[in-house]
């Protein structure tokens, strides 16, 4: 069977020139002067091989940084690597496709079978996650150019306190949820749409994009790595995987001597302080609370899911198909009003000529009104389900957050929070114990 397929393909390729040969174009004029017509130049895109080179560099960088963080424990070297990553993945490669954005490609490929996902993109998505699963978020430490550029401008990092960290920490989950929702429905790649640093890497972007970058970087002077901590959707995935990492950066290579020197060393508030005293809450109270939680979790999931589904229209409003349907509807209403005014006896209504490009293109495409509407209603249906899932996910995140706060805690030493720590190795410099 396989051979048959192969031969049929081989034959197809043999036949192709035969098919195209007798087909001619309209004859040229015969020039008497020695004029030769120029040929149309079609520039080729970046070679595919280079994409594999990028994956290779990513792999090497991840391995190197992991080694630097876990074995060498050197902030200086990690910093040097982040400069390299900034130069290579940022300024040389100019951003696309990055691991953060690849979330959307993967989601779209999962739901839309006509969208083929190149292996390189899949690897960009997978490799950092796999490395994080074994070594912690070393990708964030010095491979991701976004992190690197923010690390560079974190001049006056301030501790935000746990409340702010918690509240703002919900944003990335929402962002991730929305990004997956919009990508899966084929609406938009919002992570790329609001990519804050790509303009810098290319020295070229719209003014609005630059303004956006500027504001973010400026806030990054006081709040270290604001994008990574409070926006990055890929960070959510890394956070989850990092919690179960096999090895992770530790503040001290040996026994902690409780010197408290590292207390203020982390600009990202990712150091957990020791908790040695027992919870003052009695055991029955705890059990009661836990039982309440088991009710609370599904309750929150449902409540938020419901809210999400109710927001179906708002969410779907982002989609171009729904937008077009709305416009077409407005147009047909207007035409109705006009047609009405042409009927005898009807009052004259103000005529508004709607000739937006979208409407022009719709008219040129030859699509019928009902086609536009049915496309939009298909999208809306997706968003109804998507709204439930997105809302439910949000509810689950919040419920888990609450549950996390309710659990008893016991910690002897100062340790890095495995979920939030970027493995930047700053704290190691503060630890008086050196290997």
């Amino acid at each position, binding site marked *: 069977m396989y051979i048959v397929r192969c031969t049929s393909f081989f034959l197809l390729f043999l036949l192709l020139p035969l098919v195209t040969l007798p087909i001619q174009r309209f004859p040229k004029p015969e020039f008497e002067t020695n004029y030769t017509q*120029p040929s149309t*130049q079609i520039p080729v895109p970046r070679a595919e091989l280079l994409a594999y080179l990028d994956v290779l560099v990513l792999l090497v960088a991840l391995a190197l940084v992991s080694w630097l963080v876990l074995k060498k424990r050197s902030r200086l070297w990690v910093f040097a690597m982040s400069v390299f990553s900034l130069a290579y993945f940022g300024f040389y490669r100019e951003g696309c496709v990055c691991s953060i954005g690849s979330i959307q490609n993967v989601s779209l490929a999962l739901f839309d079978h*006509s969208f*083929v996902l190149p292996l390189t993109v899949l690897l960009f998505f997978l490799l950092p996650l796999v490395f994080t*699963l074994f070594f912690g978020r070393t990708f964030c430490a010095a491979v991701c150019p976004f992190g690197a550029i923010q690390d560079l401008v974190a001049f006056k990092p301030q501790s935000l306190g746990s409340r702010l960290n918690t509240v703002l920490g919900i944003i990335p989950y929402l962002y991730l949820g929305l990004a997956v929702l919009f990508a899966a429905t084929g609406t938009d*790649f919002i992570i*790329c749409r609001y990519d804050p640093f790509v303009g810098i890497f290319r020295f070229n972007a719209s003014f609005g994009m630059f303004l956006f970058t500027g504001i973010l970087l400026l806030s990054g002077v006081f709040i270290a790595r604001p994008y990574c901590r409070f926006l990055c959707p890929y960070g959510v995935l890394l956070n989850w995987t990092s919690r179960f990492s096999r090895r992770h950066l530790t503040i001290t290579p040996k026994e902690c001597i409780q010197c408290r020197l590292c207390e203020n060393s982390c600009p990202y508030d990712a150091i957990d302080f020791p908790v040695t005293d027992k919870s003052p809450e009695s055991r029955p109270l705890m059990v009661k609370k836990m039982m309440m939680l088991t009710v609370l979790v599904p309750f929150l999931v449902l409540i938020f899911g419901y809210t999400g589904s109710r927001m179906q229209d708002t969410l779907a409003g982002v989609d171009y198909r729904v937008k077009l349907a709305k416009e077409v509807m407005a147009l047909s209403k207007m035409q109705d009003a006009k047609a009405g005014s042409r009927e005898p006896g009807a009052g004259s209504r103000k005529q508004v000529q709607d000739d937006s490009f979208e409407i022009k293109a719709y008219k040129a495409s030859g699509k019928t009104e009902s086609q536009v509407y049915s496309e939009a209603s298909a999208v809306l249906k997706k968003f109804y389900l998507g709204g439930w899932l997105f809302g439910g996910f949000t509810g689950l995140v919040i419920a888990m957050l609450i549950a996390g706060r309710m659990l008893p805690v016991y910690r002897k030493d100062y340790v890095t929070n495995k979920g939030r720590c970027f493995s930047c190795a700053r704290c190691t410099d503060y630890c008086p114990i050196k290997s």
Partner: protein
Amino acid sequence: MPGRREFLNTLMRGGILAALGLLSGAVIFRSRDGKSCSYGFDCSGCSRSKSCMLPAALEARQTVWQLDMTKCIQCGRCATNCVMSPSAVKCTHAFAMCGYCDLCGGYFKPGTKILTTAAENQLCPTNALKRKFIEDPFFEYTIDEELCIGCGKCVKGCGAFGNGSLQLQVRHDRCKNCNECSIARNCPSQAFTRVPANKPSLMRGLGKERPGTAAKKGGVDA
């Protein structure tokens, strides 16, 4: 206690790894819906469509953005919405199609009386379209890419009065191949599509089709 914790951790790690593997598998090995194929061919004629379970991602081509002129309405957003300035979309001339007109609809402003290259006659706002005399009555039209801003004015003129040899195309030496093209998002006619990187052009009239097939007018067209 720490032992149990470690065990749970390992278990979860294994779980996450399995989940990632499953996800990749779902993306790599999957049936296609018969619409497209990573070979860049239309699946409709392929005997293996639907049942085709080849690892899609493994053979998948990198894709690049390209503009399908059959849908384009020349709204000018290619010039203003590209992340690059000037835009990576530029006018490209299919010389094989060109009629070498004296009165070129893409070159001259409407109402031009004396057909010279003087500024008052030119349609192109940046003087990027060059007109050169060849021999009576033929003129060659070329594009200075450095000057072209991709506004599509000449494309509209050529399409309306000529045979559409001037076409807007994404120039891949300039395009950054954004993951999501910002022009694609704003294109009113959804004319931007991802095309396989080895076939980056969607131009017509490069000498591969019979006159008329592009416009479906049955042999009486170019």
